[in-house]
């Protein structure tokens, strides 16, 4: 594999893994306002 190949592969992987990791971090560390207010499947009628 050439240097260009390494650059394109590592950059692409870094972008998608970084984006995925950041989203998972935010999901774990932030609160879901809705979950505290209303449980799932609340009857509306």
């Amino acid at each position: 594999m050439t240097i260009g190949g390494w650059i394109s592969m590592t950059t692409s992987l870094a972008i998608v893994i970084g984006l995925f990791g950041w989203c998972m971090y935010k999901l774990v560390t932030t609160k879901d306002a809705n979950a505290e207010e209303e449980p799932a499947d609340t009857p509306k009628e």
Partner: protein
Amino acid sequence: MSRKSNGTRENWGSQLGVILAVSGSAVGLGNFLRFPGQVANNGGGAFMIPYVVSLLIVAIPMATAEWALGRFGGRCGFHSPVGIYYSAGGRKALWGALGALTTVAPFIIGMYYVFIEAWCLIYALQYLGGVLAPLGLRFSLFQGVDAGLFFEDAAGYENFFGATVGIAKDGALFTQAASTTLLATLACVWINFRLTYRGVSRGIEWFCKMASPLILVCAIAVIIRVITLDNPSGIPGRSFLDGLGFMWNPSRNVLNESGEVVDRINVWTTLCDPGVWLAATSQIFFSISICLGAVCTYASYIQPRGDVALSSLASTATNELCEVAFGGLMSIPAAIMFLGPVAAGGFASSFALGFVVLPNVFGLMPLGQFWGFLFFFLLFLAAITSSISMLQPMVALFQETLSLTRERSALLSSGLNMLGTGVVCWFTFNLGALDVFDFWVANFLPLVAAILQTILICFVWGSTSLRSELALGARIKPPYFVVNILKFVSFPYMLLVVLFWGWRNMGSRVQEVVDSRVAQASLAFIGLSLVLTLALAIVLSKRRQKTPDENNETASPEP
């Protein structure tokens, strides 16, 4: 409003559930088979530049907007794309008709997707028969084929695939007393029916919560196996790094059939080719399942104050992880290592790569039956999580227009779906019907719908509504910038892509319709389905529905 049969409104059980369900909907055969083929055929590493640009200016803004649109529709009491677009379009029937496009498209895709799902099931079970052989549980699904999938040469794998899908002539699958492929297809239809019948939370979410982590585990296991294979043939130029290089090097040599270098393609040549930009945009567009109805339908079941900003980004990121990190490291490097760059050719077709080239690779790999089973089981799970999302928009539409219970809607949808699957299973000569459905419904319709949907979101529903919807319940700083990107970048870019795509593809396809009776029959079937869905859209538009304000569920962002 669509409701559970016990009278409560349907919702996802958790935010993780909806993220996994939408990710499961997007992660499918395209991630593991189509993406690597597209990269290898369109300039390798250089392809990733237009791909990442498309991710940033098309995929993320459009997916975010579609999530917001879906939850808005859910708060208005709608879950079908018809109802969602109708409510966002100021309750005008015209926008309900656009929803009919994005309802019928996934429904028809589901008709042939179930057929492909059955191939994955057959291959997985056939490999399992070989895996269990040492335990005395040897079995084979086909007469004359031993447990597992081992053939002397590449032609053996090609013949097996041809026989499995009945490629020799129309109706080939119906000539046998008990066709394995038809039985597997019926089993897949049943699984899809059961999951939609059980509902959003107890069916779809329940399954995706189990299947999505399992997909990740299987993919990681297969990748580790591929990485740890060190030049199994001992032939120079067939190491794992050579396989990676074939896929990721931005400049490369072009080989002829004898393996001699005949040309060299560099980065700039690739980037100046509009076809590469088109391929990258198409790949990411279809991979994320934008404008295929499933995303906005799933988003409509989010709690009224549930987050969409982070959820949409998380599901897009999960799809990209599976596509770039898993799909990019798995199939093609393995094929190059065992078969070499010439014999492993044929990456242009996902089916050839998945069902002919890779079984050939597993046939040469140590413990290949186990890895073959794991790979096709992974594809099967990914296909199921996608196909259930294709049924749900139609299930929701039947509930809203015909006032059916969820169970009856699921039964009706699955019945009609099976009818279409029967058409695909009959016209199997060169996979004629499947190919026509795939082009017109999975490629053409979503592109048209994307343009119309962007007009709806940006110019009818409006920027203010989109901003309000993104802010509601957001767990991260709302990505308001997507509004301007959608208006001033995505829209003109998509318009260019659609025009260029049409210019390149439509001529030959129209000619095919003129020449082929199968194509004409398939298009007639698509047209009939569209007319019936439009009729349902008209029924729905006749019924006045409440806005979120009137529903008194939460503050309304209604324009």
